[in-house]
């Protein structure tokens, strides 16, 4: 079948990559798109990406932490942990047409959001020799807590194929194909026997957002929840199951306190875990 179309009008949208509080792993996923990188560079103009800009010479002059813009597509990595970054994300939003957060830090606050459950001054005093040099916020928050976000890509780190899908969908003007169901779908589709049922291994897969391709269970390990909560997770039932799989109240609290610790969906976990261990509150 052959369909006649009009001439294809292509523009090269301007892409920017931004870093906030993060480990760089998610933006490096862009460079990890080895086979597709040249094709990508033909489709978008990578205007701002400090990670792949030389630190010396003419390019270094051009590359400023806060680019001028405007950019058609901004990929934002990292969470907001300082007053400066809280300002800078406002600037990034102003100069970005379409803003996508990439990874658990930008989407949920990252592992550094553990500070949200403790006293940040104590942390600073314990970690740094000269705490007075450190100026930081009391919390680590997701980008969406500061500015409107057009799409949130999950994962710690993000999945390379999903990142390409988000960029491709943006170029085609369609919705990205990023399902929000559980990791169990991915295990079943690839034929991995359930590690909880077949081995008694505790696994967060049933309440975790798909996207990684169910890597850990394929190697006999339980899901760690790198991609954060799936849509409307039943945490009460999941916590009860983790208890049956042998986890203590403390273990259960900790297994949810990782890369997506500050996800609002996980907020009831400590109470649910306590209830499982000690019975419902009087």
């Amino acid at each position: 079948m052959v369909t006649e179309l009009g001439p294809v009008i292509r523009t090269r949208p301007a892409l920017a990559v931004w870093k906030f509080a993060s480990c760089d792993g998610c933006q490096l996923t862009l460079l990890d798109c080895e086979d597709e990188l040249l094709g990508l560079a033909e489709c978008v103009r990578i205007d701002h990406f400090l990670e792949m800009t030389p630190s010396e010479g003419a390019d270094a002059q051009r590359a400023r932490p806060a680019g001028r813009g405007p950019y058609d597509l901004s990929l934002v990595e990292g969470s907001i942990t300082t007053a400066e970054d809280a300002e800078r994300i406002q600037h990034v939003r102003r100069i970005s047409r379409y803003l996508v957060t990439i990874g658990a830090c930008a989407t949920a606050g990252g592992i550094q959001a553990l500070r949200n459950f403790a006293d940040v001054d104590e942390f600073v005093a314990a970690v740094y020799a000269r705490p007075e040099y450190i100026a930081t916020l009391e919390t680590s928050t997701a980008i969406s807590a500061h500015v409107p976000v057009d799409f949130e890509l999950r994962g710690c780190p993000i999945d390379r194929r999903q990142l390409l899908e988000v960029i491709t969908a943006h170029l085609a003007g369609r919705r990205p194909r990023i399902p929000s169901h559980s990791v169990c779908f991915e295990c079943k589709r690839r034929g991995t026997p359930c590690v909880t049922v077949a081995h008694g291994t505790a696994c967060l897969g049933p309440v975790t957002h798909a996207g990684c391709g169910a890597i850990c269970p394929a190697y006999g390990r339980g899901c760690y929840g790198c991609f954060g909560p799936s849509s409307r997770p039943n945490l009460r039932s999941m916590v009860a199951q983790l208890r049956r799989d042998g986890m203590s109240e403390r273990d259960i609290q900790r297994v949810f306190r990782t890369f997506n610790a500050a996800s609002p969906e996980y907020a009831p976990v400590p109470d649910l875990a306590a209830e499982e261990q000690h019975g419902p509150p009087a």
Partner: protein
Amino acid sequence: MSADAEVNGSPPPVPEGLVMGKDGMAVLVDVLIRRGFTVVGPTVRDGAIVLARLLSADELPYGWGVELEAGRYRLRERTDGAAFANAAGPQSWKSFLHPARVREWSADRVEGEVVFTAEPADPPRYAFLGVRPCDLRAIAVQDRVLTGGTYRDPGYEGRRFGTLLIVVECTEPGATCFCVSMGTGPAAGPGYDLVLTEVVDVHGHRFWVRSGSEEGAEILAELPARPADPDTRETARAGVTAAADRMGRTMPEADLRELMAGTLDAPRWDDVAGRCLTCGNCTMVCPTCFCTTTEDVTDLTGDHAERWRLWDSCFDLDFSHLHGGPVRASTRSRYRQWMTHKLGTWYDQFGSSGCVGCGRCIVWCPVGIDITEEAAALHDWTRSGAPAPETEGE
């Protein structure tokens, strides 16, 4: 064998069947491969008896049994060396006939024109070795869904119609099996090319084999087998009869279709919704669940596009996403949709039950939700003076 063989199944030419030993099983796999079949059967992998391509009968799970419970599956070594003394594993044959991911077509933009290319239909000829009677029925159910009626799935037809079905009757049901309640086992119903019953006793390890089609009879003629002696036949039959009395689960004694239609407002749905993770495992392991989603994929240039079909599930919020949001947003409505379709409205749609009693949904539910227990609870509710439902709830 074609899907309508259930109707036209030719009578087995050797009604009494033949008997062969383990060496016969080895020859059977070799004969199938020589005849050009891709042989798929049970084998041990990742702590479970999975279905995979077999290159030799040595890969069969000789000496492995399983211990099943709601939300629990464990391999157990058996001293008798039997290959088929184990109940359903994590996959069903739909993984091959109705695969999890299928590319349907691709399209390319060439000099301003879009050229569509259909996916080449060149399926392997499968020989399924070790199909259980419940799964044989499940294949017949999917045949009706995917090849009966107005909307036929040519991809399924292509994979299915060349497939040779070698059934093994059940002598060792699991604690989660209820094929007797669903009328699907443990003896084989019609539709097979060959049927085997495994016997291990003081007289040795052997298989009683009968054919159910011409091709089955041809293959049987190539095996090192002798006419079945009355003792083997009797022992085999007794093993299958005994299995019927050892079902781990039963459905309530009720018309399940009426039970589903009459309990849409039962409080039990809230109870099960409290436990259900909506993870979708039950639908993925179910041998009859057939729902899929369609995904269109484009490459970076926009010059190449592909349409893929993937297994989907009524437990996925996106599955019922229409204009404005999902139709079945609550867990209650999603679990109820699955169970009432499986046991009730499947009759209206396809003329049979959608459940064959294999018990996979019970075993592979991470939190051990048991469809027989849920049905029993609904049945109890109707008998304990449930109020007549006024509306259909959500």
